[in-house]
């Protein structure tokens, strides 16, 4: 079945639609408040956990930094994580105490800092009986990024769990594994402990990004 703008591969399997940068005005579409647009009935934003959510409440802040060491002030991030029991909750429901999905964005007003409010995810069990250390999948979109960059945030205070995590260890270079560690910065953020996670797009300390 050939579609109007879909290109088939030799064996009839269609090609994926090609990616393009989200551009500098991504906020109009995915982060209306940052663009200065009024909210719609419900928006997808940076509070994954409400007051009723089970688990340790945490706040995660960070910046995206480019190859010159400059702060990327127009980055948009998507967040995907398990709940405190290590379970994903795919059904997005703003009324639920916890959602696995969220979005956040760097802003000029905040000097390029983004933040989201959540609970610390539990370890996630794999079918083979092993466990992945608590982690949060992050996708970075911005002007100048032609296709999103996917990484994982791990917690520096989970040394033992991290050491046993098959994905954390899939990064061959032990030095590069360190780029995925969020540092516990304060015990009394706006809601619970605050962790900091800076994402370096290029050069020294470049964050490890995944293909999957």
């Amino acid at each position, binding site marked *: 079945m050939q579609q109007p703008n879909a290109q088939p591969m030799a064996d009839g399997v269609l090609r994926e639609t*090609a990616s393009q940068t989200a551009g500098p005005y*991504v906020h109009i579409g995915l982060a209306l408040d940052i663009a200065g647009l009024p909210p719609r009935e419900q928006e997808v934003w940076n509070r994954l956990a409400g007051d009723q959510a089970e688990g340790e409440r945490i706040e995660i802040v960070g910046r995206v930094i480019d*190859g010159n060491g400059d702060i990327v002030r127009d980055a948009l991030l*998507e967040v995907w994580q398990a709940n405190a029991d290590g379970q994903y909750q*795919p059904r997005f429901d703003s009324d639920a105490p916890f959602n696995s999905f969220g979005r956040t964005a760097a802003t000029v007003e905040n000097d390029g800092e983004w933040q989201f409010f959540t609970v610390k995810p539990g370890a996630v069990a794999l079918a083979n009986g092993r466990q992945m250390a608590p982690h949060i999948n992050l*996708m970075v979109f911005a*002007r100048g990024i032609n296709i999103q960059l996917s990484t994982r945030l791990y917690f520096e205070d989970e040394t033992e769990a991290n050491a046993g995590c098959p994905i954390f260890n899939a990064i061959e270079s032990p030095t590069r594994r360190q780029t995925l560690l969020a540092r516990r910065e304060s015990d009394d953020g706006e809601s619970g402990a605050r962790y900091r996670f800076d994402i370096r797009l290029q050069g020294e300390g470049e964050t490890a990004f995944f*293909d999957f």
Partner: protein
Amino acid sequence: MSDIENRRFVPRDRNWHPAPHTPGYKTSVARSPRQALVSLLKPTVSELSGPDFRHLRMGPNDNDLLLNFREDPQHSGLPIGERIIMHGRVIDQFGKPVPHTLVEMWQANAGGRYRHKKDQYLAPLDPGFGGVGRCLTDEQGWYRFRTIKPGPYPWPNDINSWRPAHIHVSVMGPSISTRLITQMYFEGDPLIPLCPIVQTLRDPEAVATMVGRLDMAHSRTMDCLTYRFDLVVRGELQTWFENQG
């Protein structure tokens, strides 16, 4: 958990998509990794699952950009510009419809100006136009927006770089592995091959996947033209043999 771990998608062809480092698009130079991506040979539930937006409450005009924004409800009228319908299907690489998935879009107005704090282009804002839409695909994977055709606009890259008319489009698909953001261009626009962002793609056929086609059959008499734009996300593979033995 074990079921979802057996899920597999057609691997993403990184030579088909734009490379991260594309010097013709200058901003990509300092924003592209130099290290190799870490390939997950066996992705986990964390990559193979994703959000389901069926319960996200939307307003009645979220997919109608002709009606969903008024700077001043008393005085602003319909937006200026060519009235169009943009529609199509979200399908996977095997042609299978992707139902109930979230499609989001944003665009400039007819003059090429975005309603965004950061856009300072000379062209004026349109009091009747916001520039954002969203909807879920139906059972067959169809989505639809009503809007105006955006204008091209100049941007600082080369001394005289212009973006072809385009609508930014975001689709989730069945998992975060299928997540895709792209742009729809308009068939016949002479600015398409001149654009440094379009030129981040090496294969002209990859560019063709981003070109919406004039769809006269679905255009409305004395009302609006229609463009057809299908979105193809990674195909989900059947896993016949779950154990490797």
